[in-house]
């Protein structure tokens, strides 16, 4: 019997999950990532514009990092072997992905997400967008410059990432989202995160989507052919679905409840636990979270830090 897509993902990633769970124990005491926004604050934002920021110009790749160092207890030689293996894997991944990138050459994920956000946020009181721009993130100061230069308009900043998984079976879209009130507004409740200007909301999202119809073993070249065939139809379909889901998750999260300030998102009584790895840009987070939403064959999982990630059911 052919495995289901969920089983395929589960098998391919079981080792990585074990490693990630080990990491979870180490990071268990860190405070929440999510900064929730109250309904009071939302209604005081005034006019809000969206900015979709892109760091990358094309779909990214990733590799499963070599683990010789960890397996052998470390050391310089093992470290050099790890780097050499990682370098070779990166070269292979970059060479293999060419047909998919060619097929997506005119695809504009930023514009797709901008349109999806515009629609999804229409029903969120206080946070509907006047318009949404799509811009390239040039350097670490770029986003602050956009926000500080927005005049009397509050800004919903969505920094988008998208990549093929290391096994090329899935596309992962992710977003770092922050909401910045226009100058002077809500000064008493703003917080700071990294190099971002004062914000009243922050969270991270990811949507993990498997190649439709995937069954059984496939070589990487075979998978590339499937993603790229017919002008990248499958890749575009999956990206569109992932971006739509990101927009829906952001809209949902802007009104979702939160635990008392500073507390992590513990699994509520009766909620179903979920183990996995969520990927935000280049950062992979192993977690034990809980399912907060289930629909249309997808589950939305709340991580202990409050991040929201979606997976096939």
């Amino acid at each position, binding site marked *: 019997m052919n495995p289901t897509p969920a089983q395929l993902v589960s098998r391919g990633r079981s080792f990585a999950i074990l490693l990630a769970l080990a990491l979870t124990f180490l990071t268990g005491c860190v405070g929440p990532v999510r900064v929730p926004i109250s309904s009071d604050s939302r209604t005081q934002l005034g006019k809000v514009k969206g900015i979709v920021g892109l760091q990358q110009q094309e779909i990214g790749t990733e590799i499963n990092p070599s683990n010789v160092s960890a397996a052998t207890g470390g050391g310089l030689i093992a470290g050099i072997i790890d780097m050499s293996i990682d370098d070779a894997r990166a070269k292979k991944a970059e060479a293999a992905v060419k047909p998919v990138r060619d097929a997506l*050459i005119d695809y504009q994920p930023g514009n797709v997400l901008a349109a999806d956000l515009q629609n999804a946020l229409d029903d969120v009181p206080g946070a509907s967008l006047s318009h949404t721009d799509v811009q390239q993130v040039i350097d670490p100061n770029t986003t602050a410059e956009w926000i500080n230069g927005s005049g009397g308009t509050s800004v919903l900043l969505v920094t988008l990432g998208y990549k093929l998984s290391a096994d090329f079976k899935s596309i992962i879209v992710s977003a770092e989202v922050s909401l910045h009130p226009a100058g002077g507004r809500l000064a008493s409740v703003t917080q700071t995160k990294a190099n971002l200007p004062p914000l009243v909301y922050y969270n991270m999202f990811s949507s993990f989507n498997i190649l439709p119809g995937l069954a059984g073993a496939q070589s990487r070249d075979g998978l590339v052919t499937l993603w790229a065939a017919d002008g990248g139809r499958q890749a575009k379909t999956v990206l569109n679905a992932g971006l739509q889901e990101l927009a829906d998750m952001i809209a949902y999260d802007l009104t979702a409840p939160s635990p008392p300030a500073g507390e992590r998102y513990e699994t509520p009584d009766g909620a179903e636990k979920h183990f996995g790895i969520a990927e935000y840009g280049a950062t992979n987070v192993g977690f034990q979270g809980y399912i907060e939403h289930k629909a249309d064959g997808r589950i939305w999982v709340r991580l202990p830090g409050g991040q929201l990630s979606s997976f096939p059911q």
Partner: protein
Amino acid sequence: MAIFSGCNNTPQTSQLDLTVPASADDPSTAPSESSLRVAWLAIEDQRLDTTSLGHIGNDAYVAKSILPWVNQQLRATRGANFAETEDPAKADLVIKPTLLKLYIQNINVAKSAVVVLRLEFLRHGKPSGQFICRGQYAGMNWWNSDEEMAGAIQKAFADCLLNLTASLELNIKLQHMESSASN
């Protein structure tokens, strides 16, 4: 690991100098007298931002006025069966280049540079197909130095030009075959 990957915690923005390396004319690819005359139209930049060259870890790379560099390299392209002419009216083949992508990025300890051009061909003033020319280079990221990143982009561009030359030569052969058949 940090020593080898050159990581640091302070994000920096580097302005890369993409100068064209001096190159001697290669007699093996010197065009013959019956070479096709190729003219280049002004290049268009369709990137979302015309200065950004991407990110490696926390560091960002930019280059201003990149189009003259791209243009210069395109016009320096030589093949056995084609040569550049300045006047599009006298050209057998006119090429309209568009810069679609030009970036560097990191994948774990490696860096990857990519250049993508769209080349639209015009014959006798009429569209005659297009070619997406992709060049790529991937290799270990040693020091995050500006020279290393500029070198990676130049290698990716060189790969793109190789693909371009091969495509032009093929295009010209097909054209010769078509002309022979019609005669």
